[in-house]
């Protein structure tokens, strides 16, 4: 395994494909994805349900199922090749180089083990700490993720904690071995909105504090709007638009990105505004058309769209790419610009309910 220069990109994904061999034929859940993620950067991956976000993040970790799956391309994580690596190889980087916060805090904690033990476990396995050291550190971590009276909570079983606290425990477990890359797969989906904001702010603070990179997988644009440097928009297992958060929000070229943004509720809208929805459903990946996967649902689709699949092409801004034959005009993101308020309910609601000392996330949206 070659070890690359520390200053190089942390994560280099090249033409990654994950195909499930189902009884009804191959299902390309991830169909050729390439991107890079630098150190100490935050990447948001957005898309509808079934767009391949979760499979992508699991494949990057080497967690795809072992049977009936074919993975192609390359994932270089801090110099380690993930594609084709065995569990024994991966165990060297799991926890220390890359860690994951799972989607559902209700099922991600072992119900019969005390939460403190579950945090301490990886410390003992990976860092070889003694029992006492691990306990001290676990309590520190519980404190770090904002759990009150951590020493008492150390002995709690998961069922004695609420969803928000369990997700904090999950974050503590993921942070235990100081990972360089933290994968957060819809970390707030199972939580109610006020807790969502707390968890996301916590992640944000920890990311800055610990100089780690975060890959935030979500279907909620409000989550990524103010907390990411870069955004990848996925549709049907492929990247349809990627770029800096600002470019994707303000200068998006791909109609799908626009549609996603328009279907997000905003506080600047007058009350009782009907939300725009994207007509139709995500395509069946078993029966992908040869053209653009979004074409059947796209208002701008032309004949060309159903014949030939558009490739990612660079937009005006550096690093901003989109895949569309009939892109929106650059700078057409004005639908967002007119408002100076938040992008979606979670952020705004949290603002209303729990006043935050830092207002950067809302006031000057996208300006990070």
């Amino acid at each position, binding site marked *: 395994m070659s070890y690359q220069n520390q200053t190089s990109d942390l994560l280099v994904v090249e033409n990654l494909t994950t195909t499930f061999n189902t009884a009804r034929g191959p299902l390309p859940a991830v169909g050729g994805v390439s991107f890079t993620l630098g150190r100490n950067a935050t990447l948001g991956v957005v898309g509808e349900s079934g767009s391949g976000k979760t499979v992508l993040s699991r494949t990057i970790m080497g*967690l795809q199922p072992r049977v009936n799956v074919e993975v192609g391309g390359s994932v270089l994580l801090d110099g380690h090749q993930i594609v084709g690596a065995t569990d024994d190889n991966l165990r060297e980087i799991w926890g220390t180089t890359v860690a994951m916060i*799972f989607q559902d805090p209700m099922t991600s904690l*072992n119900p019969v*083990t005390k939460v403190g033990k*579950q945090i301490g*476990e990886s410390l003992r396995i990976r860092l070889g700490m003694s029992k006492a050291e691990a306990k001290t550190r676990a309590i520190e971590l519980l404190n770090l993720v904002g759990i*009150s009276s951590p020493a008492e909570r150390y002995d709690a079983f998961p069922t004695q904690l609420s969803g928000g*606290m369990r997700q*904090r425990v999950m974050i503590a477990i993921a942070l235990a071995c100081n990972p360089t890359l933290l994968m957060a797969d819809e970390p707030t989906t199972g939580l109610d909105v006020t807790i969502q904001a707390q968890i996301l702010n916590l992640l944000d603070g920890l990311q800055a504090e610990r100089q780690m990179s975060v890959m935030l997988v979500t279907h909620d644009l409000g989550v990524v709007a103010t907390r990411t440097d870069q955004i990848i928009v996925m549709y049907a297992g492929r990247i349809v638009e990627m770029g800096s958060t600002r470019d994707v929000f303000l200068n998006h070229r791909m109609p799908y990105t626009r549609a996603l943004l328009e279907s997000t509720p905003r506080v600047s809208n007058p009350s009782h505004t009907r939300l725009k929805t994207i007509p139709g459903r995500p395509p069946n990946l078993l029966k992908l058309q040869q053209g653009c996967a979004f074409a059947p649902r796209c208002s701008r689709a032309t004949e060309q769209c159903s014949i030939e699949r558009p490739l990612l092409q660079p937009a005006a801004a550096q690093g901003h790419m989109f895949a569309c034959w009939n892109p929106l005009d650059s700078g057409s993101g004005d639908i967002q610009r007119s408002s100076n308020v938040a992008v979606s309910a979670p952020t705004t609601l949290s603002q209303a309910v729990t006043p935050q000392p830092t207002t950067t996330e809302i006031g000057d949206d996208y300006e990070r």
Partner: protein
Amino acid sequence: MTEQSINETSPEVVEQPEKKEPLGVFFWLCLSWLILVAVGAIFGNLLPIPDPNEMLSMPNEGMSAAHWLGTDALGRDIFSRIVIGSRISLTISIGSMAIGFGVGGTLGMLAAFRRGILDLVATSIAFMFLAFPSIIGVIAVLSFWHPASLGKITLVVGITSIPLVYRVVRAATLATASKEYVTAAKVMGARDRRILFRELLPNVAPTALSFLLFGLATVVVFEGILAFLGLSLPPYLAPSWGNLINESRDAITSTPRNWFLIVFPSLALCLFVLCLNFVGDRLRSYFDVTEVKL
């Protein structure tokens, strides 16, 4: 992000339940009965009770101070025969469950965890055996494998229970292994052995324990069936609960006033099975940490 906002107090603090619901008087009653039976089985010879194999009195005598539960057709003391009889019943049930869980439980966990060829082969074989009524198999083997002995009966019943245990443990393990926390443990760097013992076993254990207690009780009854068919230990060697019931069958059909011959051994068997199940159930819910008790 300031330190202050990271450590904002979480409003969603749930108070830990301080006291658990007590086990209850009935639990302790049942447990005492089980302990009493166990003591009788282990120290039966040392107890100041009449010799179970000695003809001490007139046959079919009713209850008296000398013979608490009366005497059987050969004038033997029924009480001491029940006490000693528990020995055979318990040995067979504990022994066969040890075999069943030792082989079936281990295989079930491994198969569900590793999947692949081991799972395929083991599951196919187990389901093949499950397709036959096990009692017929046991009867067939024991009819030809003479003479019956404690070891043989335990072994045959134990082997019969392997596919049943295998199926239950495998299913419980499969359900647990697909949970996210097993993946989470893996991503934390836990090795297979650790996942098996730390993540899977504690979650499979409650299911396995309930099945174990159920199995213990079933085998006690099963031995009764074998004895009823005359396939268990010959009654002159040692009485078992099943033997006692079987022996008294003829006695009561001819003379119903000898009801005590069959009622007390049956009562002993029923009470034992009932207590075992109740104690098991109560213990399981007492130590269950996966349910919030409000």
